[in-house]
Structure formats: structure tokens, C-alpha cells
């Protein structure tokens, strides 16, 4: 009888200890990395060349120069073909490189006629959320870039990783629900100077559609 009681007390204690441990040590998952697959794009776009740091040969172009919709739409968007051409028409030095030649094939049409002129480039999605998720770029950019005045690459980098060091972008965060929630659970300052904080919304319908 005593042994039975003792055993029960032991197990109950163990359970409570585990519970309190789980309670206090819930690790935020924000930093968890989960490298996505390499995606074959029609043109191997060098993000490092465009957005990378100057000392590494990059041109430090603001992410939102090309992904211009991010601050006003739920999607960041891919730049339209004319945007690429707009710059590259004036850059003779790389005009004959294979990637730029490919780019101009989409604009002018390919010699063999397989690509008609002004065909949008069939970029593949790298950060493809499930269809039932409503992720709003605008809100995140507004909050962290405009209100908190964080550097743009840091803001984008929360979810997209360090794109400026990549050529073709590759997913580097898990983008799972728990990962999202771990950041929504944190206290974020309201703006650059405020000491007031708030958390991300936790209504299901905020993200599920």
C-alpha cells in the first residue's frame, strides 16, 4: 500500500514538474530555420548582386524598389517585366551576359519564336503559403518599416531570411503556424520611440481565410 502511494506521489510530482517546465520554457520559434528547397527559376536572379552589401559587390537596392507592392498590398509581388527592362536597357556592360539576354528574350521575343514579345516571366513561388492563409505584407511593412523604422532588410528578413546573400531566393524560415504565432506572441514596440508595446493579433480569422 505504501509503495503504491509513494509511486503515485512520485508520478504526480513528475507530471507537475514537466508541466511547469513546459510552461516557463516555451521557446519562441522566431529564429527557427528551415531551409526550403532550391527552386529552379526561368532566370537565375542574383539577389546578392542587386541588394547585397556594397563591400560584397552588391548595389544595396531597397527591397521595395522592385517588390513595390509590399507596402500597399497583401502580396509583395514580383516586379513587372518592364521594370527590369527599364534599368537594364541603360546598362550596356552586362547586356550580353546569358541572364540578361534571356531577360530581353521575354521583352523582345526569342529568336526561335518560342517566347512571344512582352511575355511575363514565369517566376515560381518561393514563399508559397497554403491557400487558406491570408498573410498581409502591407500590415507588416507598415508596422515594422514605417512605424518602427527598422531597416528594410531586417524587416523583410524576419520571414524571408537574408536574401541579400542569396542568388535565387530560397526559403529559410519554416513559415508554419507555430512560427508565426511565436512572433505574434511577443511584445513589439508601437513605433520607433514608444515604450508602449502590443502583440500581434491572435484572432484565427486574422490569418485564416
Amino acid at each position: 500500500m505504501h509503495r503504491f502511494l509513494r509511486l503515485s506521489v512520485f508520478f504526480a510530482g513528475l507530471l507537475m514538474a514537466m508541466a511547469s517546465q513546459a510552461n516557463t520554457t516555451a521557446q519562441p520559434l522566431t529564429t527557427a530555420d528551415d531551409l526550403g528547397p532550391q527552386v529552379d527559376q526561368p532566370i537565375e536572379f542574383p539577389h546578392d548582386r542587386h541588394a547585397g552589401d556594397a563591400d560584397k559587390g552588391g548595389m544595396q537596392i531597397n527591397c521595395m524598389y522592385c517588390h513595390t507592392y509590399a507596402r500597399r498590398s497583401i502580396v509583395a509581388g514580383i516586379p513587372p517585366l518592364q521594370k527590369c527592362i527599364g534599368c537594364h536597357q541603360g546598362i550596356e556592360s552586362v547586356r550580353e551576359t546569358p541572364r540578361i539576354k534571356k531577360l530581353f528574350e521575354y521583352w523582345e521575343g526569342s529568336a526561335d519564336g518560342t517566347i512571344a514579345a512582352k511575355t511575363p516571366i514565369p517566376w515560381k513561388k518561393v514563399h508559397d503559403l497554403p491557400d487558406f492563409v491570408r498573410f498581409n505584407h502591407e500590415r507588416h511593412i507598415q508596422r515594422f518599416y514605417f512605424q518602427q523604422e527598422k531597416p528594410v532588410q531586417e524587416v523583410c528578413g524576419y520571414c524571408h531570411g537574408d536574401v541579400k546573400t542569396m542568388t535565387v531566393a530560397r526559403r529559410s524560415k519554416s513559415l508554419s503556424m507555430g512560427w508565426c504565432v511565436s512572433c505574434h506572441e511577443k511584445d513589439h514596440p508601437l513605433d520607433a520611440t514608444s515604450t508602449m508595446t502590443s502583440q500581434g493579433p491572435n484572432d484565427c480569422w486574422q490569418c485564416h481565410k
Partner: protein
Amino acid sequence: MTEKDIREDIAWAKINKDVLKSLENPRKMYWVIIFIALAMIGVAVGAELYQYLTGMGVSYKNNSHVWGLYIATFIFWIGMSHSGTLLSAILHLMHADWRKPIYRFAEAMTTFSLMTAGLFVMVHLGRLWMFYYALPYPSERWIWPNFQSPLLWDAMAIFTYLSSSVIFLYIGMIPDLAICRDNMKNGWRKKLYTTLSLGWEGTDRQWRNFRITYLTVACFLIPLAVSVHSIVASDFAMSQQPGWHITSFPPYFVAGALYSGCAAIITLFIILRYVFRFEEYMTLPILKKTARLTFAIAMVWTYLNLIEFASVWYGHDQASKDVLIYKATGNYAPFWWGMMFCGSIVPLTLAFTRFQTNIPVLFVVSILLNVGMWLERWMIVAPTFAHGYYPWAWDHDQWPSFVQWSIVFGSFGWFALLFMVFCKIFPSVSMYEVKEMVYHRSQETKKKELASKGLANKGAH
């Protein structure tokens, strides 16, 4: 003088031999039952696959009538499980030793009917591949199930009850498993019994620990049994629907559960007695006691039923009253009256001593009682949908589809299969407790004889 529950002069070796025989050599009927059960399961599995692949729609429920036979049958099986606990735990604590030859199979019935009930929870789900969302486990998503939902309580209660019942069944079997182990020739069975009997030697210390453990689990099981069906009742009572939102539902459900359980015990009693040749142990006096117990519970159930009607009738909830009238007069009236007949009129036969030991009569009656109790569950679930608050959504005709019926029938096959296989592998009559019973009875008889002798001696003086 009453008949004896069991012959007092059975040799212990004969008990072992008779019971162990059931593991080897049942009557042909055993295989017939197994075959029928397998066939029923086959159809049900096919139906379930079809439903799984196509969608719940094939069962013909609809947007206002979202629950059907699955939930009704689920409650039925949960109810069925209560008898085992009643016989093995409650009567154990009450020292009613006539339960001893039959409690083992009753306890097995508890376990298997819970396993069957659990299946219905799954079958009923629209996305059963996501069933684990209802379990409280720490997940990556940082979310929990809704602890406010009676359905979640249900899931937990059933899980607890099932695991406790398995433990109870198993612990109670350990001494018998040791007997099996000692009487088996080499083979997989021997290995099985060796493993399961946990090195039981029958020492005094082992017996002492065994009895304490058994008693503890029995005590634990009783509140569980009551709570499980109360919680199932609260699935309905906690809702807002007319015909469901009734305070007396928990005790009513528990009574109904014990009732159908007892009826099922009579059925299985008769079947086992025949199939495994247990006439020596499952004696008619025991059957008689079971029948009387069943009768008593039937009357309790009837009483609670009438209470429910009265409380609805004299209450001010017009919608509930409408549902009650609808049950008695609407589309479901034949079934409702069928339930009243099977549940309250048929058990009156059990009041007659003549029928209490008449096996054919008891067999038919016990089956009718269970049909009645199954109808009762259906009559709780369905009419509320067909005549709820919102008249626009009252449905025309919700006759369940073949898929629903075949899964419901298949569950009986599934239960029968589990049960029959169990009886073939494990001793379905508790050998050590029958020995105890025989021993106690013979002691008593001796005492009585001594006393009467003493009296006679005195008188001689």
C-alpha cells in the same frame, strides 16, 4: 430453501479443467458466430471506406440533421459498458458473491463496448484524419482544444474509462493467467500467458497486494463509470436544443446504461453458457438474480423516463413540449412507441419467477430490451433535429442510408468478434473467484450444518 448458485462440491481441479476447456474446444456455434461477425465487419468496413473517400454525405444526414445513428449507437455502446463495472466493481464492493462466475465476461464486455463506442466517435467525424486536434497535446501551433466542449470531456472520459477498464480486467485476470500458464503445453499461448501473468506464484504477499490493487482500481472505476455516462448525457444536456436540454439526463443516461448493460449480460450469459459449455458455473440461479437486477433497473429507467416527460410537460418550455409531442405522434412515433414497449413493457415478463429461469424467454426478452435501449438513444438524437427550434429547417425524411445502417450493424459484428476472440484466448470465467465462491459456500453450508447439528444436539439434551 433457495436453489444453490453453484454446486459446492465441485473439485477445484474440475473448475480448472472446465474453464480451460473453453480455450480449446468450444461448440460449433462459436465458429458460426465468428463467421457472421466477420461478414458484418466486412460490409461495415466497406461502407466506412466509401464514406471516408466520398464524404459524410453518403450517410444521408443533412444540414439541420447533422447527427444520426452514429451518435445514437455511440451512446448505446457507452451504455453497454456500464454493466461490467456494475457487476465487477459495485457488486464486488457489496460482497455479492453470485457475480463471481460472470463478472469476467461482463468486464470484457465493458472494455470491448468502449472500444466499439470509440470507433463511432471516429466514424462520425467529418475529417477523421484530423481527430487528434481534439486531444490536448502541446502542439507547435500553440493552441489547445476547447475545454468547454462536452465533446472534449467525452473524449477524455472515454479514454480514461477505457484505460481503467483494461487495467481492471487485466489485473483481475492475473491469477487465472497463471493457471493457464501452468496448464498449457508449449506454444505461443504459453508464452503469452507467461508474459501476462507477471510471474504470479500465488504467494501470500502476492495475494495481499493483488487484493489491495484490485480493490483500489474497483473503487476508482465506480465514479468513472458514473461520470462517463453523465458526461455523455451532458453532450445533450449542455446543449440548448429542445428535447436535449434536460436536467435529469445524467442519471437517466446512467440508468439507461446499466439497463442495457444488464440486458446484454443476459444475452451473452446465455450464449457463453451454451457455446463454451459453462452450465456448471453459469447456473440458472445466477441468471435469475441477473434477471431480477435487470427488472429493478428497468423500473428505475421507466421511472426516470416518466420523470423526464413530466418535467417537460409541466415545464414552460414550449419547444421541448413540442418535441415530446412530436416524438409520440410524428414521423418517429413507431420507433418511440417501440422504445416504450421494449423498454418498459417487455421487462415486466422478468417479474414472473417462471420466466426468470426460462432461457428462450430470457434470450428473446434481453434482445428486445437492447433493441429498446438502442431505440431510446436514437429517439434522443433524431427527433430534436427533425423538430427543433427552427421550423424552416425541419427535415422531410431522414431515413438513414445503407452506409449508416451497415456501419451500425457492423459494430455489433466487431463487438462480437472481439468478445468471442477474447473468450477463446482468455478464461471467461474467473477460476480463482469461482473457487473462492465454492469454498465460501461450502464453509457456510458446513457452518449451517454444524449449527443445525448443535441445535439438534441441544434438543437431544
